[in-house]
């Protein structure tokens, strides 16, 4: 119960503190620092209005700086120092150590496969689901059912899919649906799907595709509905068949949205940790970068290599980061 009390106190202090901070900082600014009265009233109001925005954004900027911006720099610093040598600067020694680790290359290879397969499959399934569900009466129910895995945690999804992949000894009843189907179609011995090197990566990817398809579907469905009807009508009059309409008229028009969906899922993939951690923990050649990093940092306690691999993830994210910032700036102009 202590924790509950602490939680309650935190909510009260947090919310009260925030409101109090904003209220009183504005009050102090208006009444004491630059009072809107006396000989300099006009100038003071202008000055106060120059300062005020910073009062509003200060807590957020502090939190962002401390919890996201500072760690990027700090992690980089950790990646070029050695904890066992009293944090001495060691240049790229940690990186070269990491590059000699076969597990790192395995993780990088797997991550590349994830980066290709998961966004592609999720977007394709999402597009298919969006196109199909938009055309039927019970489409919204179908949508919310396909969307549902979004709410399920990666860990919960891991359990769900482990049951699907479960294998029982030969001759007994199979309780994992994949093996049940495999036997039913004439397979002889039940397979331990998650221990088959290389292919097991795909069995893990399916879990993320299953989760992300709903997201892609929701966004793409909105984009499809935003397509001007005239373009579709014109195509029909010109005698295009449904497939031509879809691939030659609709898809090109929603291309920007497809790119957004693709990059968003790419970022999710780069951070994927829980699924691998819970299902195989990187055994049987299923390691990925995020789990490799966790392994090095908190099991191997090798902060240097751990930070170096975190920097690799950052490096892979950077193009998307730059692209997003560039687009945001374009939009504001």
């Amino acid at each position, binding site marked *: 119960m202590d*924790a509950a009390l*602490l939680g309650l106190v*935190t*909510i009260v202090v*947090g919310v009260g503190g925030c*409101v109090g901070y904003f209220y009183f900082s*504005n009050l102090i600014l208006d009444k004491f620092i630059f009072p809107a009265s006396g000989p300099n009233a006009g100038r003071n109001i202008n000055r106060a209005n120059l300062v*005020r*925005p910073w009062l*509003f954004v200060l807590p*957020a*900027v502090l*939190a*962002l700086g401390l*919890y*996201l911006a*500072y*760690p990027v720099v*700090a*992690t980089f610093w950790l990646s070029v120092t050695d904890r066992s040598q009293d944090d001495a600067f060691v240049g790229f020694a940690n990186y070269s150590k990491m590059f000699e680790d076969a597990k790192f290359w395995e993780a990088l290879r797997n991550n590349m496969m994830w980066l290709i397969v998961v966004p592609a499959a999720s977007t394709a399934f999402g597009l298919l*689901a969006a196109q*199909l569900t938009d*055309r*039927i009466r019970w*489409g919204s129910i179908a949508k919310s*059912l*396909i969307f*549902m895995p*979004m*709410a*399920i*945690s*990666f*860990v*919960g999804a*891991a*359990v*769900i899919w482990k*049951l*699907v992949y*479960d294998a029982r000894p030969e001759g007994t009843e*199979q*309780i994992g649906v994949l093996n049940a189907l495999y036997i039913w179609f004439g397979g002889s011995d039940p397979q331990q799907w998650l221990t088959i090197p290389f292919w097991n990566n795909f069995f893990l990817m399916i879990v993320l595709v299953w989760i992300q398809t709903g*997201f892609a579907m*929701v966004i793409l469905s909105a984009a499809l509905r935003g397509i001007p009807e005239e373009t*579709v009508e014109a195509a029909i009059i010109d005698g295009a068949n449904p497939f031509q309409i879809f691939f030659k008229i609709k898809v090109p028009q929603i291309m920007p949205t497809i790119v*957004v969906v693709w990059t*968003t899922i790419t970022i999710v993939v780069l*951070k994927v*940790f*829980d699924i691998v*951690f*819970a299902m195989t923990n990187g055994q049987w050649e299923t390691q990925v970068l995020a789990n490799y990093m966790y392994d090095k*940092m908190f099991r191997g306690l090798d*902060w240097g290599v751990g930070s170096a691999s975190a920097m690799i993830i*950052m490096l892979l*994210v950077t193009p998307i*980061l730059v692209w*997003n*910032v560039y687009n945001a700036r374009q939009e504001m102009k």
Partner: protein
Amino acid sequence: MDNIAGSKSSLSWVVNISVVALVLLWLFPTVGLFVSSFRTADQIAGSGWWASVSTQERQNPAIRIAGEEFERDGLYVIEGQLFEVEADVSAWGTSSRAPEAFGPGDTAELSKDRTVTVQADGSYVFTATETQEGKRLPRVFTTAETAPEFTLENYDRVLFGASGESNMGKAFFNTLTVTIPATIIPILVAAFAAYALAWMDFKGRALLIAMIVGLLVVPLQLALIPLLQLHNNIGIGKGYLGVWLAHTGFGLPLAIYLLRNYMVGLPKDIIENARVDGATDFQIFVKIILPLSFPALASFAIFQFLWVWNDLLVALVFLIDSTGETTVMTRQIVELLGSRGGNWEILATAAFISISVPLVVFFAMQKYLVRGLLAGSVK
């Protein structure tokens, strides 16, 4: 599309069937977990969950005869019923070497002049020439068709069972303790910042917005070690305070981004009228912007709630210490996967408890979730 001539093609039933197939494919794994959480361990091991509503013939674990002994015709007799549910015994035996030695209605002769007779419905008669008081009674192996059976016992066991068995009750409570403050606090901080970024003109605003867009995608993996070090240095260490702060920090970029996008779209007239009427920025924010932004606030609240509730990594790093007192559900499930990988009744139940809350939130607030997603990604 439906109103366009010619688009109502004969394809429409193909579309319907495809969507049914797609939906079933997407639901199937989750339903499997749900159904499994209501089955007993024996049933889960005996047949796939998709067969759970049909009667199944299988070999049951041995059942030891037990019951009140009484005398009849000079024999000591025990009568009873092997199953609690309806069953149809096709074969039975009294040793593990020959579990199908007898058919229903047969009588097995045991050592020391004891006999057992088992009927097809599972009722049995045991006789002996001397009293069996204090002696071990024989076991009966059966192969029977049992009716489907569903139970709530797993939930009772996982949530309220002896401590140390799964700890899910405690973990549920801990997860709630982590989630609620970590959802509420960032909203407020973000709302003020979003207002300033949307409606106040100041130098560096564009830069700040660009920074937030950039921070949206920074992987939180980078934050783990530096922040843990920081928390240790300032004396927070591992605990609730640390995890609340971490989730607040990590949730802020999305919160500010979503709220700003929404607030920018609010009608300019209202805000300018209020300014002309002499309202301060603080008043405008509290009395006009906040109430009008409710949909965006709700969207973000759902995102943050789902994210914190489902999180494993941040809790592992910032919250759970070696005592394990502050464990959360996702972590407990991973533990169970390791230690009880075969006990599907425990695993399925624990997992379903953990995903049930997000599912309720999801279905109740789906409208806001979709709206938030659209605001957050479509540009």
